[in-house]
């Protein structure tokens, strides 16, 4: 293959992302983890793809959500496929839990960062194993942590404050979904790259469930729109 022109240091330089996904938001609830992301793939400022799946189940116990470069996310899914395959081949009754998968991803991301050739993503990894809920995040420079609620990209600025106020232990499924929808609605209003086609998925001890994509209702009932010409002169 054409790749390995080794001598030039520029061969393995980080670049810029091409097709990107925007925020992912996730929270722990009573029975597991709920995660939400929209289905948009932006190409710079153009919203080029509107049906990109950014939430994927990993093995039996985990869910991965990604923002950033989609081709790198697809590559990470292939690495994880191999990881889970080898885990299954042991056939020893044990299976990789979310903490282990998160740790693997962290090592991959940090090592690529050290070689100045990062995978341009921010990943959210959530899951449940043996009743223990786990929710973590890792980004392209290898920063990783776990928390009761996480978000990527603009979600950190717009969604996390809402979650800090309104999240509590033992949210029911309905409360969790409502909270996620609230976050995704704010992102839809205020994130230029957001698209109104949301996917929510949950993971519990029983396994992962991906719900069908849906649209959020938005409110545009501003009095200024009702009589647009009133006060038009000199207004913005």
């Amino acid at each position, binding site marked *: 293959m*054409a790749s390995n022109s080794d001598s030039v240091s520029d061969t393995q330089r980080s670049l810029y992302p*091409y097709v990107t996904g925007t925020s992912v938001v996730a929270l722990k609830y009573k029975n597991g983890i709920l995660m939400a992301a929209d289905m948009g*793939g932006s190409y710079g400022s*153009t919203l080029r*793809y509107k049906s990109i799946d950014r939430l994927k189940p990993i093995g039996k116990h985990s869910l991965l959500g990604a923002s950033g*470069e*989609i081709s790198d996310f697809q590559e990470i899914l292939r690495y994880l496929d191999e990881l889970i395959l080898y885990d299954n081949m042991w056939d020893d009754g044990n299976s990789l839990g979310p903490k282990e998968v998160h740790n693997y991803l962290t090592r991959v991301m940090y090592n690529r960062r050290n070689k100045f050739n990062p995978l341009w993503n921010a990943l959210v990894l959530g899951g449940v194993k043996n009743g223990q809920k786990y929710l973590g995040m890792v980004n392209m420079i290898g920063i990783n942590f776990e928390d009761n609620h996480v978000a990527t990209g603009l979600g950190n600025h717009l969604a996390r404050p809402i979650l800090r106020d309104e999240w509590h232990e033992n949210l029911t499924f309905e409360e969790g979904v409502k909270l996620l929808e609230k976050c995704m609605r704010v992102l839809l209003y205020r994130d230029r790259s957001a698209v109104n086609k949301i996917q929510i998925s949950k993971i519990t001890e029983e396994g992962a469930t991906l719900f069908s994509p849906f649209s959020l209702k938005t409110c545009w009932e501003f009095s200024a729109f009702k009589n647009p010409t009133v006060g038009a002169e000199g207004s913005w």
Partner: protein
Amino acid sequence: MDFNAPHSMGTTIIGVTYNGGVVLGADSRTSTGVYVANRASDKITQLTDNVYVCRSGSAADSQVVSDYVRYFLHQHTIQLGQPATVKVAANLVRLLSYNNKNFLETGLIVGGWDKYEGGQIYGVPLGGTIVQQPFAIGGSGSSYLYGFFDQAWKGRMTKDE
């Protein structure tokens, strides 16, 4: 006149699925800066009997990727003993695009028909993302078509439609 400007294609390419398979389309202009280097280019390139690719971006990059994929698919077909699937062809294109993303500047649309999944279209834009779509548009000329396709596209069309 910068004759050393890279031959970029300034292209519009389209791939569409319909009820019998796929239809691919492309314009025929290759430009070097403002000069039209070739007004009769063939941007739809055959990879196998049943899979073709529409090329956009750098002419050289898209040609060399097509050549490698055709070569690999040929070997794959011999080893497999039956025609390659469109998915395999598209993934070979993706592998080259992704693993050489620092060097390549080409957006491709892979379209074809196989007996397992019927007609399929896969977009492989810059960076090496792979995305299966009912229709795909690409190249710098595609900007004008996003609105049109959003409004006019429907699934299960006849070939004439």
